């Protein structure tokens, strides 16, 4: 390296928590440094096997046939729900409704609860940290219902400004929708404090966006004290197209169905219908049983690793990355100190646009995300239109940090080079 400093950097010696060999894509590409797990995680063989296993030994339409194979499919789907519910700490397993993921979960709550409970003049509170999945459904609900959208601003290190949140809560606040972990900068929300504040100041329901929380932190829904918790499977080693929303049973009972069709009905008359019970009332049509089974395999894999160990592993990587990146001249890291964030590090280099960074890093086998991270309201507040983001997961290790740092210095060298 032409710009090597006098003190040669020490390689980061951190082993992966989960062996790369468990992940077929990573095993096939040993030189790949996949640092975009906040967008989607890689999948272990156990998950692929579970999906194949369902299709090759249990495939039939759940809840439909009277024959044994259909019963087997129904059982597999049911067992998957129980496994995932336990992983997320909810005892009342039927309050976990499967969806395609966090986006659909938020749309479900905004429609099934929001349309009947948010009246003109009511207030909906979201934050400037939210990704579009937890922003646009509420923005549109507010527009449709004639309600006011209130946006909680951030501290200078991109944490939710709790004082501002408190000042926005009123007896008219009907919904507080807030992320557990920011996808763009990694800030972890102090959920207990938020819950206490909301309960004290308003009658609002609390909708927690766990898209980035569930993969990276131990979650116990029953202890969170929120009304709804949404999550995506593909960010926690599971397949794409499956996720869910857990709700307090009392809140589910207030909801109207939002999609209509098979499975969600109890009885269909010519001119009206009655509805099935939880969770089926909110799962219209043939369920995505195979991917639910795949997701159950993913959470079993994570349970073996232990979520406390997952958190500790990411924190160690984050601290190492933080220290190494801080040594790069001019590099700016967004977000709070490592202890207050999940395994995401968002940054910018002066004079090198994040899009250019991503291309150059890709050349070195380092996959990072460059862009607005589906969080344009946050980018506006950062005074930029994009950042570069590296994110870690269970298969990440010290060599990923080393590769990131090396590639960044190469990018910097390339752009610093003065043309003739």
């Amino acid at each position, binding site marked *: 390296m032409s710009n090597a400093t006098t003190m040669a950097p020490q390689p980061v010696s951190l082993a992966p928590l989960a062996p790369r060999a468990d992940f077929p894509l990573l095993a096939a*590409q040993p030189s790949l440094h996949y640092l975009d797990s906040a967008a989607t995680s890689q999948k272990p063989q156990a998950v692929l096997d579970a999906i194949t296993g369902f299709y090759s030994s249990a495939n039939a339409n759940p809840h439909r046939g009277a024959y044994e194979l259909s019963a087997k499919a129904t059982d597999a789907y049911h067992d998957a729900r129980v496994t995932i519910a336990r992983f997320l700490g909810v005892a009342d397993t039927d309050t976990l409704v499967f969806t395609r993921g966090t986006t659909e979960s938020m749309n479900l709550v905004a429609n099934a609860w929001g349309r009947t409970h948010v009246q003109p003049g009511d207030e909906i509170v979201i934050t400037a940290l939210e990704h579009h999945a937890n922003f646009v459904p509420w923005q549109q609900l507010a527009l449709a219902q004639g309600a006011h959208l209130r946006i909680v601003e951030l501290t200078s290190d991109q944490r939710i400004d709790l004082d501002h949140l408190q000042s926005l809560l009123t007896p008219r606040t009907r919904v507080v929708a807030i992320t557990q972990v920011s996808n763009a900068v990694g800030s972890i929300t102090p959920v207990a404090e938020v819950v206490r504040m909301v309960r004290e100041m308003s009658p609002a329901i609390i909708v927690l966006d766990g898209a980035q929380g569930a993969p990276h932190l131990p979650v116990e829904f029953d202890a969170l004290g929120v009304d709804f918790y949404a999550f995506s499977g593909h960010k926690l080693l599971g397949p794409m197209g499956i996720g869910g929303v857990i709700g307090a049973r009392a809140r589910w009972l207030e909801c109207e169905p939002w999609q209509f069709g098979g499975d969600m009905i109890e009885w269909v008359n010519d001119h009206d219908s009655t509805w099935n019970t939880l969770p089926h009332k909110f799962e219209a049509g043939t369920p995505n049983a195979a991917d639910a089974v795949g997701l159950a395999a993913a959470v079993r894999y994570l349970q073996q690793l232990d979520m406390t160990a997952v958190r500790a592993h990411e924190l160690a990587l984050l601290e190492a990355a933080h220290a190494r990146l801080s040594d790069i001249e001019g590099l700016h890291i967004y977000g709070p100190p490592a202890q207050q964030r999940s395994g995401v590090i968002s940054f910018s280099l002066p004079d090198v646009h*994040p899009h*250019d960074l991503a291309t150059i890093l890709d050349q070195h086998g380092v996959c990072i995300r*460059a*862009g607005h991270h589906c969080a344009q309201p946050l*980018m506006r507040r950062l005074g930029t239109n*994009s950042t570069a983001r590296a994110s870690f997961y269970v298969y990440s290790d010290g060599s990923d940090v080393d590769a990131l740092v090396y590639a960044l210095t190469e990018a910097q060298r390339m752009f610093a080079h003065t*043309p003739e």
Partner: protein
Amino acid sequence: MTGERRDSAMLSAMYQDVILQHYRAPHGRGVPDDCTGEAMRKNPLCGDELRIGVVVRDGVIADVGFDGRGCSVAVASASMMTDAVRGATVGEVRGLMERVDGLLRGEMVSGLARCPDLLALSGVAAYPQRVGCARLAWVGLGEALGADGLGDGSRGAAI
């Protein structure tokens, strides 16, 4: 890119010095006050946005400029575009736009005498995710010129 790894020569081909020079010190920075047509182009993938303004008089680009934020490829392409089209007739600009599209598809292209630097854009063709960056300013120019080429277009949209 995960499957086939591109070689560093391809990267150097995209980040040629001429691209970096235009990026560091872009030509045509600033939309003319008296523009007859302008357009705002956004790249929804990265959030970049460029505003292009033209002054068309008697079928000739009397002035052209841009502002906004973009990556090296987007800004360099916009910078070269202003060099290439200033003083050209609208008809010439249309031809140039087609040749730039060809370059970005990886085709051999001639007729770039108005701005030989444009040839450097050919390196972008190997990076399909970046072609949109290079096209941003040119699509904006097309909109600023308007469908009839009178230079009175006005649009704001995503590519």
